[in-house]
């Protein structure tokens, strides 16, 4: 208890001593002072019990998330037709049994069209990817700085746990980032959902702010990695086309690049792991709380 004694008492602070030499309080004001002092202690105590406020989503981050969703949607819309057309031509190529039939003039024509469409997609992607990359990079960078500062430098691992426990006591469920990140689905849809979660978390109506931030940050990193790989593939493909000086040959790389584009923009099957199922509320009797429990 002595450890928590006011500093003035322990050190003989002169300022504190001076108070005793000042004018005496009127008897009627003493209870008011006492109430004020107790009130101040209560406020200090409450502030000590509350964890420090963490600010992970300043307006710029929220705007970045929103912007990424919008850019991704524009890109998806513009590429959808080209990729749809490519799919139809692939199908025609396969159904016509053109694989290995390079001398057939009909197959050569399909391969030529396929190559042209493929180049169109590459050019489109080459023009659009930097925009989306910049937007995702901005989201990732701002979150990176906030996470490093707020959770990395200001907190211990036990502190992170306390943040989660406090947040989960405010929100019954943590909708995002439960048992694994979302690695599928359309990019625009993912960022649209993120934006919704950020807004909800910020207004206290959604899940854990820290978890939402962690989820978006790690997902952004993953998307950036995919974008870079796809860009490398595009460059490699264009170089190959230039070297071959034209089309007429359908290569496995083509389908790999189209697959990469699909992966970045349209995702795959949603495969969210749900974690341990929670029994319905009220299933169990009021739980025992030990005096040892922290």
């Amino acid at each position, binding site marked *: 208890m002595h450890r928590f004694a006011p500093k003035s008492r322990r050190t003989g602070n002169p300022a504190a001593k001076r108070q005793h030499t000042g004018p005496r309080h009127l008897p009627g004001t003493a209870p008011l002072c006492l109430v004020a002092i107790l009130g101040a202690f209560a406020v200090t105590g409450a502030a000590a019990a509350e964890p420090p406020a963490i600010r992970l989503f300043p307006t710029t981050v929220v705007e970045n998330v929103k912007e990424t969703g919008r850019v991704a949607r524009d890109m998806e819309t513009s590429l959808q037709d080209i990729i749809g057309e490519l799919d139809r031509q692939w199908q025609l190529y396969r159904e016509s049994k053109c694989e290995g039939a390079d001398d057939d003039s009909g197959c050569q024509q399909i391969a030529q069209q396929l190559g042209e469409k493929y180049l169109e997609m590459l050019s489109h992607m080459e023009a659009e990817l930097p925009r989306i990359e910049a937007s995702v990079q901005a989201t990732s960078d701002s979150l990176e700085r906030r996470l490093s500062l707020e959770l990395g430098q200001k907190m211990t691992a036990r502190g992170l746990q306390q943040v989660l426990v406090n947040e989960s006591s405010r929100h019954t469920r943590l909708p995002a980032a439960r048992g694994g*990140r979302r690695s599928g689905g359309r990019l625009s849809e993912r960022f649209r959902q993120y934006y919704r979660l950020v807004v909800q978390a910020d207004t206290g109506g959604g899940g854990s702010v820290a978890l939402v931030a962690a989820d978006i*940050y790690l997902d952004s*990193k993953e998307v950036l990695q995919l974008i870079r790989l796809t860009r490398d593939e595009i460059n490699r493909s264009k170089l190959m086309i230039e070297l071959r000086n034209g089309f007429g040959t359908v290569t496995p790389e083509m389908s790999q690049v189209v697959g990469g584009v699909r992966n970045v923009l349209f995702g795959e099957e949603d495969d969210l792991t749900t974690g341990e199922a929670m029994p319905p509320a009220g299933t169990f009797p009021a739980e025992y709380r030990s005096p040892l429990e922290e």
Partner: protein
Amino acid sequence: MDYTTRKWLSAGWLMLLVAGCATTADTQECLLPGSKNVESAFSQAREDLSRAECQYRFDAYFQRLMEVAEGDPDTGHARRFSDFLLWANSQDIINKRTAKDYYNRYFSHKFVSLPDTYSNCGYTCRVRDEVAANMRDELRDKDQGLLKVTGDREKYARANDLYQSLQLLIEATCTACESVR
């Protein structure tokens, strides 16, 4: 006293001495509770641990009690173990910190193995693998305490949730720390 009588008396003394030693050895050995009955096991543990020579085996007694309680799961076991740990603290067998760590490790959804001294960027991220391994071990102990001993599925689900969320949060925090560094 003739020779035969003296011989018999000596033999008798020798037998008594051997029997006496055997009894002393039994009580000195601090044998873990053999009973499968939870109440009997707890009272034997308390009785044995009241003796100074058995107190060094506190952890073994605790583990044995957990095993016995596993055989008869009940929500009331959390209180039984809490009382036992408080008793052990009152008897000066373990300190309050250790009592809390024992209880929370097995019966709370929170993780006591997480470091709490230095910042995440400065410390946790450097020993991330160790932290993850400790958390895994603790989740296994919570599985024993919360699921097998008390049958508290709800609390175990919370512990499991917290475990996964912490993994994600630590991964994101450490990735950010490494990139900013």
